[in-house]
């Protein structure tokens, strides 16, 4: 992957540095080979991600973006191929010291208050008890949610919850953050504002991010590199570079090149989306 060497992440010079995440020939098959219900989800994916880089995985529904993310995070083991994080092979086992996940906002445990939700994450992280509350409060204040530590998630709006959820992922001090469509449940406007906040927050931390999304604008606004994937089986179709420094301001969205890049992405994706839909239709037709 020569692109990896040329991509410049926020605050990190990729050239010459060992990749933070290295994906080599990852293939994922669900069900047995040749089985009627068997599905080839990912086909021979290889990708290097530099430290401090923000990479988006973009592709039609069902192309295996989330699967790839889960494999990087060690939530399960690929059928073949390997992922290396910080020089150590991820072998289907989570690495909470290196990698944090941010899922949709409903990941917050509804039976715990916001601060308790943070405490659990920090406890698993091995943070001493005396430091947990301070770290949590710092993170909450950073996203403007300091006043809601003792609330339960259901007492907050969806946007507020996702703010908190993001802060939880960021406050555990991992170098890598994997985000699986974190804003999917949000309306367009909240998405944009949260995306902006995320860009600001991450510029300070210098974390390496892999972000799965459906939203073209989100991908362009946030990423250093956008990995466009094909319909199933998921392959890397092409990689688009976004040369814009972090933190990014909303003005970036008004620039002509923002629109051009989005259109370019859509042109790349259109055929894949149609193929994905046809696959879906066939599957439904076959099942009926």
């Amino acid at each position, binding site marked *: 992957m020569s692109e990896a060497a040329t991509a410049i992440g926020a605050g990190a010079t990729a050239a010459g540095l060992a990749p933070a995440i290295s994906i080599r020939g990852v293939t994922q098959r669900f069900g047995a080979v040749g089985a009627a219900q068997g599905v080839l989800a990912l086909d021979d994916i290889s990708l290097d991600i530099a430290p401090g880089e923000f990479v988006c995985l973009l592709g039609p529904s069902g192309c295996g973006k989330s699967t790839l993310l889960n494999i990087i995070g060690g939530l399960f083991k690929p059928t073949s191929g390997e992922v290396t994080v910080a020089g150590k092979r991820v072998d289907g086992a989570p690495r909470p010291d290196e990698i944090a996940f941010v899922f*949709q906002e409903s990941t917050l445990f509804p*039976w715990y208050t916001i601060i308790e939700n943070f405490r659990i994450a920090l406890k698993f992280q091995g943070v001493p008890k005396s430091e947990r509350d301070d770290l949590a409060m710092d993170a909450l204040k950073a996203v403007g949610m300091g006043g809601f530590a003792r609330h*339960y998630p259901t*007492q907050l709006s969806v946007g507020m919850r996702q703010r908190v959820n993001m802060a939880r992922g960021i406050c555990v001090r991992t170098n890598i953050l*994997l985000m699986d469509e974190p804003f999917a449940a949000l309306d367009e406007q909240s998405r944009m504002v949260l995306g902006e906040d995320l860009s600001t927050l991450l510029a300070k931390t210098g974390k390496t991010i892999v972000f799965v999304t459906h939203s073209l604008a989100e991908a362009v606004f946030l990423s250093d590199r956008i990995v466009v994937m094909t319909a199933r089986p998921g392959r890397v179709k092409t990689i688009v570079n976004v040369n814009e420094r972090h933190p990014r301001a909303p003005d970036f969205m008004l620039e002509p090149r923002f629109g051009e890049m989005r259109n370019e992405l859509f042109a790349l994706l259109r055929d894949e989306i149609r193929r994905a839909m046809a696959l879906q239709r066939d599957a439904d037709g076959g099942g009926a």
Partner: protein
Amino acid sequence: MSMIDAPREIIMGMPRARAVSLTRWAIILAAAAALEIYGRFFADPAFIRPVSAIVGAWFNPVMSDERIFWALSMAVFEIAVAYALSIVFGAAIGISIGVSNFARASFLPIVLLLYAIPQVTLMPLFILIFGLGAAGKIAFGFTHGIFPIIVNVVAGMRDINPLHRSAIASMGGARADLLRHVIAPNMAPAFFTGLRLSMTLTMLGVILAELYVSTGGIGYFTRLYAENFNPAPLFALIGTLALIAVLFNSLVRVAERRLTPGARAPAKLGLSGAKSK
């Protein structure tokens, strides 16, 4: 925003909660008054007595006769033991069944089948096996009370948000952490629903057994009064049983409200009016 309480309504010139409780008492008093008038002036005293006579009979003989008091205590004891057994075994069996898809698919249909059997038909068998004493009543209460707990525990373990599972795994939590931080708290509301249903059914089981075979328990006294056309103490006795039932149910409700973690106040059936947690 969802966190803000609904504005307090004013009904009949007072806050909604007070209007609701006032209405509730008015209904009870009206029913009592109607029964009093009917019992005093119209009814055959062999079948219906006025409320005042029932209250009188509650003091004497129900509360003053040592044998009746003892019978009531015995019933409470039987219910308590049957209920405790239902909870312990129900939870244990429920967790064992709910822990894997395989166990659930294999065992749950059998449990549901057993649950559906009208157990009254098996009562003679219980008497034969456990005898005429407390053991039979406890056993019958237990077989009634255990099923709703099993079924609700299994249901509670089933509905787990896959994201919560992934969250625990990705944060590096072990299986025990999943149980403690996800499965148990997630199950709590269903478990308490099971506890409440079980309470009602356990009482039903014990009292059914009491009515069927009893040599000196509450079943004996209810039959004694019914067959002697002496309805005042009969109603007083039944009322006392109802009171015990309400008491047990309130206990479970308090436990439910206290112990359900998070802002997931259990269904209140409108009992606390517009007050929201």
